[in-house]
């Protein structure tokens, strides 16, 4: 009688009436799911916060805390808002169904629940949840944790807000000849190691990597979460990146493989941070003059033969003891006036 075809899930049945609770739990058990029960809304929330469930089957008419209240609390709880809820109720009236759906319920089944319908709806809900979890996992893997949290908290909306932040561009010098000199597999491996190191250095200072393309990356310090010392953080991360790349290159040399060098440009100021793209495919990024300047400074590292170049705003915003050298005014494309730029002295590893 037990159905082994279904993917087993962990479900929570919430109903104040014992007969309903037992029957629902039995039906779900026969479908091959693991079932926990709660006899009112208060107990249900406590249980759901303590354990993790794939789906909640929720009655509406309950003492202590009714189903409407449970739905409301679940929606405002970061931990619970993504757990799908199917309402099972014998409450009559379309307005009750509408209210449940408006409060975020996935579905509304009238009691006594038809087991075949129940199975179909649970299957659909679990599948949707699986896709959502997969999406969340993708966001987690490919976006910075701060961005993932921001997405969860604020929801997704294109458009941005003005922030004061530091933005960093970094890329590998002479990457193309390097890539051509070795098998593509080696290049992928090198890039993966390089990115792992760079993410560590940037994340370690509270920055987020907003974009990676080829051998280059863009990082933001001070958004989506405001950071008072964003200039210091960006420069510290840059110094660490240079050091890590040097260590990595030594390791490569020992293995008879080519090393790499990177150039980093940092600019600070006001910019617009937010999601750009389309609703289907978007990325968290910053735009504005400051961002363009950072990109130009990174390009200038090759010309000036410097590892790290920063703008005057970053220089003034720094409180930490870091050696800088004025490189004088620099005329950058897109700017009418020359800007003062500085090279950050990198202490060579001995």
């Amino acid at each position, binding site marked *: 009688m037990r159905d082994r075809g279904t993917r087993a899930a962990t479900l929570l049945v919430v109903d*104040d009436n014992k007969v309903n609770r037992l029957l629902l739990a039995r039906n779900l058990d026969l479908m091959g799911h693991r079932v926990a029960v709660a006899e009112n809304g208060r107990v249900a929330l406590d249980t759901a916060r303590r354990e993790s469930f794939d789906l909640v089957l929720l009655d509406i008419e309950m003492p202590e805390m009714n189903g409407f209240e449970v739905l409301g609390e679940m929606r405002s709880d970061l931990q619970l808002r993504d757990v799908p809820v199917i309402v099972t109720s014998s409450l009559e009236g379309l307005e009750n169904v509408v209210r449940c759906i408006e409060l975020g319920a996935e579905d509304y089944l009238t009691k006594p629940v038809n087991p075949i319908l129940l199975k179909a709806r649970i299957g659909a809900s679990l599948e949707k949840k699986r896709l959502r979890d997969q999406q969340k996992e993708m966001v987690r893997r490919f976006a910075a944790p701060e961005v993932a949290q921001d997405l969860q908290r604020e929801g997704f909306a294109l458009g941005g807000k003005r922030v004061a932040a530091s933005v960093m561009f970094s890329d590998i010098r002479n990457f193309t000849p390097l890539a051509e000199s070795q098998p593509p597999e080696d290049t992928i491996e090198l890039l993966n190691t390089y990115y792992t190191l760079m993410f560590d250095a940037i994340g370690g200072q509270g920055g987020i990597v907003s974009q990676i393309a080829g051998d280059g990356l863009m990082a933001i310090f001070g958004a989506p979460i405001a950071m008072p010392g964003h200039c210091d953080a960006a420069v510290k991360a840059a110094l660490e990146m240079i050091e890590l790349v040097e260590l990595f290159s030594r390791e490569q040399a020992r293995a008879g493989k080519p090393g790499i060098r990177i150039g980093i440009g940092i600019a600070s100021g006001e910019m617009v941070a937010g999601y750009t793209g389309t609703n289907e495919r978007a990325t968290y990024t910053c735009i504005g003059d400051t961002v363009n300047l950072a990109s130009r400074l990174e390009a200038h590292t090759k010309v000036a033969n410097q590892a790290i170049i920063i703008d005057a705003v970053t220089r003034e915003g720094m409180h930490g003891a870091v050696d800088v050298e004025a490189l004088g005014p620099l005329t950058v494309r897109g700017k009418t006036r020359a800007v003062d730029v500085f090279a950050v002295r990198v202490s060579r590893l001995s």
Partner: protein
Amino acid sequence: MTQSTIDAATFEELKATAGADFVRELVDTFLADAPEMLKGLRQALEDGDAERFRRVAHTLKSNSNTFGAATLAVLARQLELGGLGGVRGDAGAQLDALDAEYARVAQALAELGRA
């Protein structure tokens, strides 16, 4: 009486999907809980507790539907939707009718359980 005490098709379907042994236990649970519900209705009426009255009637309706106790479900539904106001006047008579129908349901379920 136009409707049967227990609708055979509903009860059979319940046994087929949940298992006969399980349904026997479920019936026992209902027979243990239902007298409390009936008492609860009278108590809520006496206390003028409309919310409790509606909720208990609702639960009784829901359980009656589960077992195919069609007439009991109809009576409970009238109480749920009518509320305290709906039974004022002949509240006692309506609750008496509910008690009487429950007695028939309890007997029928007990017999089905032994079958």
